């Protein structure tokens, strides 16, 4: 597993996905926007769960965004899924 994956989304923002392998936790940092900002913790929870159970990652993330009415600016759920997959290689 890679400790972090970085992506500059074309015409979007920089996202760094970091993995704390010891605690199976994912952290997202970068110059992106998310509304409301408190949604980031929920997205990180979904990514962390998706790290443990990759088959559920897409559903978890899409549901988190939908249920909490999160607006992502500068990146898409697909970017996060691809980065998570890259980190797991």
């Amino acid at each position, binding site marked *: 597993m890679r400790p972090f994956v970085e992506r500059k989304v074309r015409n979007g923002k920089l996202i760094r996905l970091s993995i704390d392998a010891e605690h199976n936790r994912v952290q997202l940092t970068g110059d992106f*926007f998310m509304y409301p*900002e408190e949604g980031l913790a929920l997205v990180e929870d979904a990514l962390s769960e998706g790290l443990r159970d990759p088959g559920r990652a897409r559903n978890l993330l899409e549901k988190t965004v939908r249920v909490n009415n999160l*607006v992502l600016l500068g990146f898409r759920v697909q970017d996060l899924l691809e980065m998570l997959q890259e980190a797991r290689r």
Partner: protein
Amino acid sequence: MKWRLLPFETRSAALNMAIDEAIMESVAMRTSPPTVRFYGWSPSAVSIGCFQNIGDEVDLKRCRELGIDVVRRRTGGGAVFHAEGGEITYSLIAPEPIMPQDIDLSYSDICGRVVQALRSLGLASEFKPINDILVEGKKISGSAQTRRGGILLQHGTLLLHLDEDLMFQALRVGKKKIEDKGLSDARERVTSLDRHAQASEERVLAALAASFSAGIDSSVGYISKAEMARAQEIAEQRYLSQEWTFSR
């Protein structure tokens, strides 16, 4: 609805951010009208977006040596170097219902005011989504927006003079950040007003005030005592706290 225009004032990084937040609260409580504020930074400062890792973005040791403040914003977006005397920052704080509900559209609407101000100074610029304004392909202004408690806050910069050496001593800019712009050096990405037009700070401020107040009912006002007292509290509790600043 009548708007309040707050004249340009220079303050510390923590207080600048806290004043924006205190005004958000007072607009939410309807004790203050929608507000446009212009401000500067003293000492010079770096502000980072709320989702950024401070160590990735800022050379903290160099900032300490140079006396540059470092503050984490409530808004997302990137790290910004705010040179003392080198930029004008604006903030617009208003109830969401009187602003475009679509976030992209609201960026376009508010940044369009800055573009119009630059045009009135004879400078052609363009809004580049998500949150930049470019002159001749280089960034002269960046903005960041949050929405809390039914209130929209957008703050943004307009670079007047650029001290690239100082800026890039304070900021760490990875190659990844600029790779999709076809640039090898972040210095190629930024510009400032004085490289394209001759205009005093007063003239730029007048142009911004005219542009932001176009089409709305507004008058010049002041930060209330209650707002300033609340801002002092917020500065202490959040923007000067290590817990907040180093939260990522």
